[in-house]
């Protein structure tokens, strides 16, 4: 039982929480805030918006090349990446594309 109690905080600390379960993460910067998409449609899942000024190391580890970029994770695995490209604008159907992938994940659970 003691090892189990110890395991809880260890797991909590080591796991990359922003990639757990179904997570929609927007990587952005203060100067690209106008180009960000609203993550409200995904409020049932984990949503995060990181700015490069605050979380540089995550941008490096996730190899973010364009701002903004939206990535859908499922249990730590990258499922879908939507990048703005040099136009600094995310595609209009970004939300639709992410929702489609989420639907596939949810469907696989039933």
């Amino acid at each position, binding site marked *: 039982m003691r090892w*189990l109690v110890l395991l*809880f905080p260890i797991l*909590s600390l080591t796991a990359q929480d922003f990639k*757990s379960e179904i997570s929609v993460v927007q990587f952005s910067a203060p100067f690209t805030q106008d180009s960000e998409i609203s993550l409200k449609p995904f409020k*049932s899942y984990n949503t995060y918006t990181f700015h490069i000024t605050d979380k540089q190391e995550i941008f490096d580890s996730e190899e973010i090349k364009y701002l903004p970029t939206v990535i859908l994770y499922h*249990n730590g*695995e990258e499922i879908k990446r939507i990048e703005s490209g040099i136009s600094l604008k995310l595609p209009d159907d970004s939300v639709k594309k992410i929702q489609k992938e989420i639907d596939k994940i949810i469907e696989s*659970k039933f």
Partner: protein
Amino acid sequence: MKKLITLIFILFAFNLNSQVIDNSDKFENKIVREYKFKKFFKNLYDDIFKYATIYVAGDMKNAYETQYPDYFIRTNPDDLYAIPRVEDQTVYHPFDYRAGFGIRKLARFDYEVKGNNYYDGTENNKALSAPTAAVKGFEYLFHWEKERQRSDVFTNSRYFLRHTGDYHIVKIEQREVGNVDLKYQSAEVRARLPIGKKFSISAGVIARTHQKAFGYNPIELWLNEVDEDGNPANYWYTLGFEYGYDDWYYASTDENGNSFYDWYWTNPQGDIVAWTDRQFRDLIFGQLMNDFNQQRWAELDPFAEYAPIVGFDFYHYSQGGKFWLHSYANWILPYHKYFKGNVDFSYLHRDSWGLGGHNNLLKGKQWSDYQGGLIIGWKISKTLGIFVEGEYAKFWDSEIYNSSVGLNFRL
């Protein structure tokens, strides 16, 4: 005149404009209403029916057969020394079957594997026992089936409905398992507090039913009843009379001159079923005691009680499914309050019964119920994996253990 024309023009223009705006508003409202109407039903469908499966399923298999047939010999009563007839007494049951239908929307946790390509009603998802769910929103199972086992036909059903949110859990469940005569209903409402993404605690209230009258043994009380002189009020053999059996005195003397006596017993049809009292007690009396108890227990209404419940749930599933840990526990606190059924016969008064009946001076004894589960899977390498699953529940005086362990090494 010019002013009048101007005024009419303005009024006309005003009326015309107002007319256009009014129509436009009506048109817009109609579109909005239609949109809201469609959206409402789409949301309703998405929340309740999306990913649900309606199924009709069943199975059929050979019934249990004894390894060797049973035989007995039938003797001619008019000629005890004639060659007896050997008869096959083996019980041959018709095939067993199970046929049912249902609708289900239960999400599997990531570590759970879908057993078949189809649902047949025998699935036992963790969603039914874990306090939280793999997905938020509605989950349900409505299953009904008819089953035949060794010629006995039962009805089984399970109705389960749960809504899970970030901060709440609401659950209603009803279960009936015919072959063990289990009928169980529960409803619970809990507030949930997520701590981080993997851990949550919850607290609320749960209402449950039970049918068994704990501690109350009618036949024991009946047999131990005494009159004012301290003699048994109900002699054991009078139970046989209650069920239509009768005893007949007889005496005989053997060839050595020893005389003895006893009573032989006949059933309600007049057939001899036992040659002595002892034989009657060995062969018949046990079943009569069971029948007596069943009848007395059946006279009692089912019991229902509510109590506070607390619990926790921890779920971790690592990238690529290399490691997972799911543990949960529920504790129903010892503050049970009965709101249906005669409380004197309930589990609260399980220790209030003695040979003289219920001790009305006792106020009952509270108790705790528990339920917990632990599922661990660790794929140490591509070829080696360890899996442990265990579940324990203590509800009233029933304890249920369920565990499995696996060490897999793929060559």
